[in-house]
């Protein structure tokens, strides 16, 4: 019996509008942050603490990843899934809850991040109430999607849906495992993992957020929109099978390549490297299937802006997935890690997602509004401005990465570092300016697109529903003889879901369980003690201001790092660090052993005006630390939460903690007064941050000082 049903275009339209709007906002934040690195005055620190780089950069990354790309995924899913399954979305109400829930999360995220409420874990900065909200909305999205799949009128699931399903279940796993945290107060929590373990979990998450939020959903998107736009059959069904399973299996293992040469155990690092190498071909499988689908349609690519964006996206995907494994090689990573190279790489990768998004919009909006694109030449203009923008972004970043590497690692024949850190900063700042201009161009291109799409929408009539009809699925199905084994999985969505979950959980389990359980992996160091209450408060201020966005706390075992920053970092030093603060980018110097390097007054003056102590610095000043008082009311619950996580504060220390805090703070304030005639209240936040910075890395130093007397 033929059934008649309707595809809901309204929800697609909503997600598309949200996607483009947040895209513009997120990119604008990026452009502002990029200019802040050149002109520190743009941090507006004298007027308010909310827009400093450390807070703005997470807003940029979260907005672009979760708001722009996220809404782009949902646009694709809500448009393609009903059509691929010949069934409307399972529940229009859930669709709406999903949409408004996600936008609410985005608004909350932006406000809390600017307010300094952050967990301090990159790309997972949102605090626990928002984490809970994300989980709920994600589950709602899953129920709606799986419900649609279960009520489908198409026997087999198309490859795009495999990718959507695997992405959904993996993101759920990543988000839940990485966000396990102990709440301290309404907007403050500590992650349950510490130090090396936290780093492993975080980069397992971070790497696979790239994989399963930014890549696999976009492959799903490509498998729907590319053959549609090109009007060509998908090149190879068996390649789809091979690269789908190999990709999701191998991706999950590669996280440790973000931690090469760190205190992570060697075996885990090696796994990260080899799985990244093996990941290359499965990634290229997606590229090949995309590019070869265009066989016989290349004449269209020249004129059709949609295909143009898709082709650039697919080829960029191929290049980025080649660059990625190369950057996972130890000797290459020694150069690229902490440098602008990674920044360039990730922006090119994201260029992939963005170009898929934009290509989809150019195809989708005219479709939804039953019209033709307002201006092909404007779309073409956008394409070229955007391409120029990416080039102008990436080339200076590569350049600056290599220059700073060669400067950082240069020694005089006498064995001294040839350049001060500030010399390097001064050298790369002009490149940062070029990068900011490149980003501005890219944003300008997107604005051209917004204008074009608005004009397109105005010229057409929006159809709220598309009518379709298809017979219901027969209750019994006998597979035709000779059908491939994989088709069994394709008609059993739950089996597909479970298999995907098994495949993606293997890598994480094998890497994490030994790191957590085998003591040898993180040898304890007896001189490493928990933070004092004042240092703990200082650490939370460090996290709040997003210092980790520019400063690492991980000295790699290289001569030039050990000479510059001090002895290389050991796994046992971080056992009380909830969360770890190793960072991923060094715009400023490493701070793992900053403790004791300068006097308190140096830090005092430096936080008030960085250029006074370090002429030429691009760090923003932090005048608010000199006005705000330490939130001593929170000390009790912080100590309590930390003890629950295994930090050995004595029982009942909560009650005494604030006495210790005040005593230590008074000591610092008094010393500033007597030695430097600096008058500052002992209750100010600056005292806490000085205490924390002066503690960093000193636990081991104290031991060494005792062992080897000064010559």
């Amino acid at each position, binding site marked *: 019996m033929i059934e008649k049903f309707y595809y809901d275009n309204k929800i697609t339209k909503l997600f598309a509008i949200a996607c483009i709007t947040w895209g513009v906002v997120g990119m604008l934040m990026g452009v502002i942050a990029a200019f802040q690195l050149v002109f520190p005055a743009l941090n507006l620190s004298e007027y308010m603490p909310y827009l400093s780089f450390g807070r703005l950069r997470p807003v940029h990354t979260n907005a672009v990843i979760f708001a722009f790309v996220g809404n782009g995924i949902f646009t694709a899913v809500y448009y393609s899934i009903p059509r691929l399954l010949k069934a409307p979305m399972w529940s229009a109400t859930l669709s709406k809850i999903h949409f408004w829930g996600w936008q609410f999360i985005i608004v909350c995220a932006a406000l809390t991040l600017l307010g300094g409420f952050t967990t301090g874990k990159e790309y997972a900065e949102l605090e626990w109430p928002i984490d809970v909200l994300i989980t709920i909305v994600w589950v709602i999205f899953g129920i709606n999607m799986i419900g649609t799949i279960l009520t489908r009128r198409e026997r087999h699931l198309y490859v795009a849906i495999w990718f959507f399903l695997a992405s959904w279940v993996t993101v759920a796993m990543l988000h839940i495992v990485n966000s396990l945290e102990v709440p301290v107060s309404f907007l403050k929590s500590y992650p349950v993992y510490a130090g090396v373990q936290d780093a492993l979990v975080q980069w397992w998450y971070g790497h696979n957020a790239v994989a399963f939020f930014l890549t696999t959903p976009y492959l799903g998107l490509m498998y729907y929109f590319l053959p549609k736009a090109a009007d060509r059959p998908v090149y190879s069904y068996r390649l789809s099978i091979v690269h789908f399973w190999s990709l999701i299996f191998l991706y999950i293992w590669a996280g440790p390549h973000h931690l090469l040469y760190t205190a992570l155990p060697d075996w885990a690092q090696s*796994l990260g490297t080899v799985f990244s190498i093996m990941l*290359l071909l499965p990634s290229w499988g997606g590229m090949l299937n995309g590019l070869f689908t265009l066989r016989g349609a290349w004449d269209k690519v020249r004129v059709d802006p949609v295909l143009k964006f898709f082709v650039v996206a697919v080829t960029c995907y191929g290049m980025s997935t080649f660059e990625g494994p190369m950057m996972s090689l130890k000797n290459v990573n020694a150069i690229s890690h902490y440098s602008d190279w990674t920044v360039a790489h990730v922006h090119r990768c994201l260029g992939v997602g963005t170009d898929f998004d934009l290509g989809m919009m150019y195809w989708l909006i005219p479709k939804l509004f039953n019209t033709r694109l307002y201006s092909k030449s404007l779309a073409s203009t956008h394409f070229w401005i955007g391409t120029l923008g990416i080039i102008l972004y990436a080339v200076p970043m590569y350049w600056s990465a290599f220059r700073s590497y060669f400067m950082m690692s240069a020694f005089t024949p*006498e064995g001294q570092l040839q350049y001060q850190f500030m010399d390097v900063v001064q050298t790369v700042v002009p490149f940062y300016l070029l990068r900011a201009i490149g980003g501005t161009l890219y944003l300008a291109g997107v604005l051209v697109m917004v204008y074009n799409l608005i004009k397109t929408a105005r010229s057409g009539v929006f159809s709220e529903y598309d009518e379709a009809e298809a017979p219901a699925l027969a209750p019994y199905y006998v597979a035709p003889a000779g059908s491939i084994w994989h088709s069994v999985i394709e008609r059993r969505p739950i089996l597909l879901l479970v298999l995907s979950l098994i495949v993606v959980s293997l890598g994480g389990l094998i890497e994490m369980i030994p790191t957590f359980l085998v003591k040898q992996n993180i040898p304890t160091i007896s001189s490493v003690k928990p933070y004092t209450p004042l240092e703990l408060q200082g650490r939370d201020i460090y996290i709040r201001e997003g210092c980790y966005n520019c400063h690492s706390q991980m000295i790699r075992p290289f001569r030039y790092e050990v000479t510059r920053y001090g002895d290389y970092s050991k796994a046992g030093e971080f056992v009380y660090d909830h969360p770890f603060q190793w960072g991923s980018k060094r715009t400023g110097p490493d701070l793992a052993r900053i403790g004791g390097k300068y006097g308190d007054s*140096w830090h005092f003056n430096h936080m008030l005006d960085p250029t006074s102590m370090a002429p030429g610095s691009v760090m923003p000043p932090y005048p608010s630390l000199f006005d705000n008082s330490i939130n001593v009311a929170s000390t009790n619950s912080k100590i309590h939460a930390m003890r629950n996580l295994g930090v050995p504060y004595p029982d009942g220390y909560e009650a005494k903690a604030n006495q210790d805090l005040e005593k230590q703070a008074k000591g610092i304030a008094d010393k500033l007064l007597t030695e430097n005639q600096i008058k500052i209240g002992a209750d100010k936040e600056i005292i806490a941050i000085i205490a924390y910075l002066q503690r960093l890395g000193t636990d081991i130093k104290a031991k060494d000082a005792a062992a080897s007397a000064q010559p």
Partner: protein
Amino acid sequence: MSNRYIFVVAAWLSCVSMPLLAQTTPPTPIATSETSFADSGHLFLLLIAICLLLPIYILGRILVMSARMYYEKESKSTHSNTLFWLGWATLAWVLPQTLQAQTAVVETTAQAADGNTNWLYVVLLSAILLELLLIAFLSLRVRQFLKGTSKVAKPSVAARPSLQARFMRWWAKVNNFRSIEEEADIDTGHSYDGIRELDNVTPSWFTFAFAMSILIAIVYLWRYHVAESAPLQLEEFRMEMAAAEEAKAEYLKKQANNVDENTVKLLGEADIAAGQKIFVAQCAACHSENGASKPGGVGPNLTDNHWLHGDKMPDIFKTIKYGYPDKGMKSWKDDFSPHQIAQLSSFVHSIAGSNLSGGKEPQGNIATAAATPADSTAAPADTIAQKH
């Protein structure tokens, strides 16, 4: 005809580029030592490189002869032969030079120091690679000419497909493409919202490369964690530090730079001026440019008579070299050379007692012998301070 021109140009290029490539000398070793080879691996490579010169020479001779035979037979076409012969004459002329240049490379590399082990390998290997390429090129041409002598009829130029068409054919072959007309045969019959799926075979290079990447992964893990034949990061670090230490000691042995707190002397005016330059660039943040710091400043006033850590040259030297981190003075031994620290110490010594105004209030003890310079060669403190 155009084919021949391409050939001549290629011959020219290869001839001219060979000596150029071969003459790329390895970077001058930092410290020249007497030892010629780090290990037997180098010697082995060198032997191969030298042995390969013989076949190159022989092949070159054969080529010139076969070419002469070929063109004597095909003497009907006379024009453009001059150009062609010019090409081969060049080759004949350049070849011995190439050989010489390569031997030269081998000799220079032979002098490279142990520290440049990797460079030596790279240079030797690339020399061998170039030689192999040359052999391949020469043998290909010889074969062509020898063939040509038995079969004078050349394939017509017009019949050869264009470069693009040839590339497309190659491209289709490596990717195991089926022609688009045959598409119906490999259609899976799937149609999802109108999207059809073909079932093309996976390109064989893809399968091969994927298998290779898995193999590489296994070998990698084997080397680092089972055979333990490659250094893990801390081992690598120890090796790097040891090499650096050795290079530094080697260098310092030859320099008058190994001054330390026991041997430091007050230096003369030129060095004091150099010290002042460093001071203004690196120390001014805490001590102000004139060394007087400022009320409430981070570092102490260096222009008064008071000293926290001693006023003698060795004391000042030590303060700068090791720092007093608990008091906020960092150690500068990794930033400045011993000589630079001596210059800085001399500068600091020279401004002491000048009592510049606007500085930080005094800290520490009054110098016991501030009036008498530690070294008789030094200029009196105030004369230098006046130049300030």
